[in-house]
């Protein structure tokens, strides 16, 4: 059994000549609660759709739970062992909540009745409610119930907190942590809400323009990424080139700021060697790391 729940190599997908994925490489270890972050149109949804064979890659390969995502028979097995919450959270408009649950349950022998009852209560869903009468947030809650109760080994979530109220978000985050910690489920979820992701994720993939900018353990990533603020005696413009290889740079008068990824000590030593008046090493939030990386890549 492979240690990777998701393994993607050189994935390319074009829509009408425009690249949605441009040689994407990423991996998610089993048992991880992995966040998938990127700007709009970065390729997150396309990636998730390729993993479930809703779309086909033009080049490259994707494996889910050790199985080839492009194989017809293997894809059925992947879907048997995977749960998915799509970006567009619609369900069959002619069913009730109870009917959608019964319909979904029929495909999964390992359906978790205990979790179904728990999330019906926690999300305040009633079986007799018609799908057409559910609000956007309530539809999201029902989607989450359907995903969490499947007894899946891997849960793929595309913007799962979209439309959720704060209480719903809290239930969702607790559920994710519980599924990973207690049941060993792997979760791979895309979201724009980086503060929520930072609360629960232990693994992170940052995608930009169809390529992975970062892919690794979140704590190690945050430990390695530091903002180094250096103040020099004179204008720092001429010194900027000295730090160009360390990471994205920002120069403002005598101040030079570097987002250092993994080479903080050498940046600090170099700054002192160049006679910096002060060197301040600051920790970064996930949001700051993401924005600095994306801006740096764009430049």
């Amino acid at each position: 059994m492979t240690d990777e729940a998701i393994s993607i190599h050189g994935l390319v997908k074009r829509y009408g000549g425009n690249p949605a994925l441009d040689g994407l490489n990423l991996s998610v270890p089993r048992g991880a609660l992995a966040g998938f972050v990127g700007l709009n149109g970065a390729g997150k949804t396309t990636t998730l759709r390729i993993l479930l064979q809703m779309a086909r890659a033009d080049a490259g390969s994707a494996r889910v739970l050790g199985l080839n995502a492009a194989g017809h028979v293997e894809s059925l097995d992947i879907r048997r062992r995977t749960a998915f919450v799509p970006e567009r959270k619609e369900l069959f408009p002619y069913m009730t909540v109870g009917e959608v649950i019964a319909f979904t349950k029929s495909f999964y022998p390992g359906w978790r009745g205990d979790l179904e009852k728990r999330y019906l209560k926690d999300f305040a869903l009633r079986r007799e409610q018609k799908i057409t009468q559910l609000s956007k947030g309530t539809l999201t809650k029902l989607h989450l119930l359907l995903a969490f109760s499947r007894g899946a080994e891997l849960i793929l979530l595309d913007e799962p907190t979209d439309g959720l109220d704060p209480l719903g978000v809290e239930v969702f985050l607790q559920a994710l942590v519980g599924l990973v910690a207690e049941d060993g489920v792997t979760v791979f979820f895309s979201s724009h809400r980086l503060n929520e992701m930072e609360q629960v994720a232990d693994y992170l993939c940052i995608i930009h323009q169809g390529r992975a900018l970062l892919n690794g353990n979140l704590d190690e990533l945050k430990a390695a990424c530091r903002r180094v603020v250096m103040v020099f005696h004179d204008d720092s413009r001429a010194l900027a080139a000295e730090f160009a290889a360390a990471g994205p740079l920002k120069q403002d008068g005598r101040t030079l700021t570097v987002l250092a990824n993994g080479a903080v000590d050498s940046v600090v030593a170099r700054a002192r060697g160049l006679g910096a008046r002060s060197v301040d090493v600051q920790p970064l939030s996930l949001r700051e790391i993401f924005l600095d990386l994306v801006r740096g890549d764009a430049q």
Partner: protein
Amino acid sequence: MMWRKSWWECRFRVVCVALIYLSVSAGALLLLLNHGASAPPSARLNFYVILLACLIAPIVTVLLAGSGINSQTSWGMLHGFHASMYFLLSLPVSRRRALLIRSAMGGVFTALFVVLSVCTISLLALWSGTRIPPNQVLGRLPFILLGAFGLFGLSTLLTIVFDEFWAGMLGVSIIGFFFGMEIAFQSLPIRFQPAEILSGQQFILTGAVGWPVIAFFFLLGVISMAASVYLVERKEY
């Protein structure tokens, strides 16, 4: 549960088709009662048969062919596809199976309405003074069903390639073309006239079997269904 889902998606269309069938049959019966006496029996029957075939066959097949594996709303037409498709495609069910179950459900009801139409034509014929022997009706029914299968397969294929609205428009247009051919080329032998198999008129009245047309509709149905499965399996969402 896939069968139940197919029934849920199909049921409102079955009701629509039943209403159309009843209203057309009732209209034909009223015409027969009020204005039928002056026309010769064969002309009256010809009119009713064409009326039923023209109105019911296209609507039945186009409405009941579904929309490929797309989720359908209870009423109205869909542009593009309903976003619940993403949920369906995440389930461990192959697209081929989803399509075949949905088509089988629509096909059963199409067959049911075809049988009802044939029975209605036989009763109207009897009312007009033309008795069609029951064994002749039963013997020719498989050929009429085969004609409906051809149209049903074509309608299924159209709904996979086009939006529901355009598939419906095209389906009705193609069937209208078949009937137009019959009017334009009346000198053609019956066995080469596609509309004959749709109405079953000549089969019932004369027992004639148009093998070329039967072969055409059989092939149309088989090729259309095979193409539908192929396209659905390759389609990207």
